[in-house]
């Protein structure tokens, strides 16, 4: 990576770190938090869908499992949210391994894999609705007790910094994928799985690792959501809307790129907030939002990141 690029990213990080000190408007901090959180979830999808080429329509299953894991640990056993987040990470990875093993072991690819992940999310939703320890359809209400141990903050900046940390970690993972042998294996699988296997890539193992990393990230995201909004129920935890948002920010920003989900999240949330703010007629903001979305997807097949790829200098390209 070029020195100038590194400096630019460092400057962006410093700007992000001091943003709560510069922005007095708490709503804007809250919006930035949601953008970063959405980017983090999008990156978790991007690792599986963007880098490994395994399109998942049900990645919310990891998010929901993480949310339930930490919430149950907190509300039933009194285990604080930090340990809950670690448990959620492992729970998400475990669900990833479970879904991945059953899907990849039997050679499900493409649209079949997408549909099976959607089905898993629905199964988990039905299960969460049916069993007692998840609160059934009533869900789990988390008591409002601000404090670092509980990962609850009265000041929106607290959530902002947690979301920022998650996003930076997710970018670091994507950056590592760009440069590692494992990342190259994933890209090879994405481009042509049979060819990759013929060259000695263990596609099953690589895809399993990818879905477990994706699941672990989704699980931690679930904990963040539960601690911020203090209530989860099956439609929130396993609803298809979150899955769609995860893949949408990646597709709009640029699949299989380090910054795609972050850029996609900024643009989609930014457009959403601006249209909601300036257009009061019910539904009209969603129409405008939809039209912008269609335009982006229609005219930028490589996502917004594709706009900038063409100007990479030869030296940058060599670095990459």
């Amino acid at each position, binding site marked *: 990576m070029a020195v100038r690029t590194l400096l630019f990213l460092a400057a962006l990080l410093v700007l992000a770190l001091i943003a709560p000190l510069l922005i007095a408007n708490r709503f804007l901090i809250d919006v930035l938090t949601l953008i970063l959180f959405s980017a983090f979830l999008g990156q978790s999808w991007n690792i599986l869908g963007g880098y490994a080429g395994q399109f998942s329509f049900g990645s919310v299953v990891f998010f929901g499992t993480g949310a339930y894991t930490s919430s149950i640990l907190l509300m039933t056993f009194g285990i604080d949210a930090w340990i809950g987040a670690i448990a959620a990470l492992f729970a998400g990875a475990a669900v990833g391994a479970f879904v991945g093993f059953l899907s990849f072991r039997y050679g499900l690819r493409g649209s079949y894999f997408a549909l099976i992940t959607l089905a898993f999310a629905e199964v988990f939703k039905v299960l969460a609705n049916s069993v007692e320890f998840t609160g059934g359809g009533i869900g789990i209400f988390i008591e409002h007790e601000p404090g670092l141990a509980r990962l609850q903050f009265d000041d929106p900046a607290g959530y902002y910094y947690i979301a920022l940390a998650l996003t930076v970690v997710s970018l670091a993972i994507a950056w590592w994928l760009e440069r590692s042998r494992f990342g190259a294996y994933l890209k090879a699988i994405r481009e042509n799985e049979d060819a990759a296997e013929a060259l000695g890539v263990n596609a099953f193992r690589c895809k399993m690792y990818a879905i477990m990393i994706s699941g672990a990230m989704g699980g931690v995201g679930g904990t963040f959501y539960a601690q911020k909004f203090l*209530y989860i129920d099956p439609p929130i935890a396993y609803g298809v809307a979150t899955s769609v948002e995860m893949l949408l920010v990646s597709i709009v920003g640029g699949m299989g790129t380090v910054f795609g989900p972050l850029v996609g999240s900024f643009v989609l949330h930014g457009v959403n907030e601006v249209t909601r703010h300036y257009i009061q007629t019910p539904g009209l903001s969603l129409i405008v939002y939809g039209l912008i979305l269609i335009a982006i997807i229609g005219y930028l097949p490589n996502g917004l990141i594709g706009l900038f790829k063409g100007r990479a200098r030869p030296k940058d390209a060599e670095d990459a």
Partner: protein
Amino acid sequence: MSKKSHERSNRTSVSRRRFVAGASALAAAGSLGFPHVARADGHSVKIGLIHPVTGFLAFAGNQCRYGCQLAINDINAAGGVKSMGGAKLEAVLGDSQAKPQIGAAEVEKMNEAGVNAFSGCYQSSVGLAATAAAAKYNLPFSIDIGVSDRLVGRGLKNVFRMADGYGRIANDAAVNLGRINKAAGSPAKTVVVVHEESEYGSGTAKLMQELLPQQGFDVLETIKHANPTRNFDNIALRIKSMKPDVVMPINYPGEYVLLARTLKQQRIDFAASYSVLGGGFNFKFINDLPDVAEYMIDVNHWYNPKSEVAREMRGRVEADGKFFTFEVYLAYNSIRLLHDAFERAGSTDNDAVIAALESSTLDPLIMPYGPTKFVNGQNTGSRAVSIQALKGDVDIIYPTEFATAKPVFPRPRA
């Protein structure tokens, strides 16, 4: 990269400087465009209205918004908040899109816009998130509609609800059904409960499973369905196979109407459809599908038909081309409750307004309630009533002091 493609990319690409400049400009525009802090300025008292005006609950959400705006217009026409020099109420509109995180984000936005109190949110899940967000700023929050008992039962001092939660309503519903059945010679013995999957449906259904046997009913099955559900054929067939005396729907408007229509289309015979907080039981339903609605019973919030003010208000709403649904008058009363608190507090100080709400003894005017009396944020003076669709209109059939007709139970055979 070839020279040609490099040139092409140069034509279409954006330089980093331009990107940074553009992004900064966007950020600045966004910052300037969003509301700045400006609390009540002596001329207006801002009330944030958070409802699902888009999405699958859009009809109900818009009815809520309409009711709030109607109240604000009436109050302003009558002189606003007189103790504050005639300060006008000002609505700040929000759309939760039926999502808890959006509802909470609306609170953050409206707090920055200087809102002094909130009214919302129709859905309990959104209400739980939004009230918690408002609690951070100690901003008063009046729940216009939202039946989860946890909305007011978790120690948040800023949250008040004028109407009942599902705990008391479920109890009233079971008792009323028992009395109606007994008065008719106890023709009904079995019940099938059909409920939606969220807290409202699941929580109410769980209570009904405990309460109905106490009234002598056998609950044959409790059937849960997703939101949204657009085909009730299978559920109707299951109901048909069990031959219950009473079908008890507990669901949101769209599903409520679809289930009722499917039961009618499949000619399933039962003594009564007796819903609890049936989201779709309203004048729109009765107007659109009178044959389906006829004789259906619901236990719900309803206006007091013996109140002159309520009848006059119904006329005004209908003249405005709207349906006089419970969302309208519950939202209307929610704003009246806040206005009364501002009036007695004489300021927009949060603590003073919350104290005024705690000591509220407001005459609910249009509702069959006694004066408000809040205990832990819940108005203990409220009560739901049993209502029945009869001859294209809705009559209260229980309790008797508000009744405008006698129950038709069991309903006549088709």
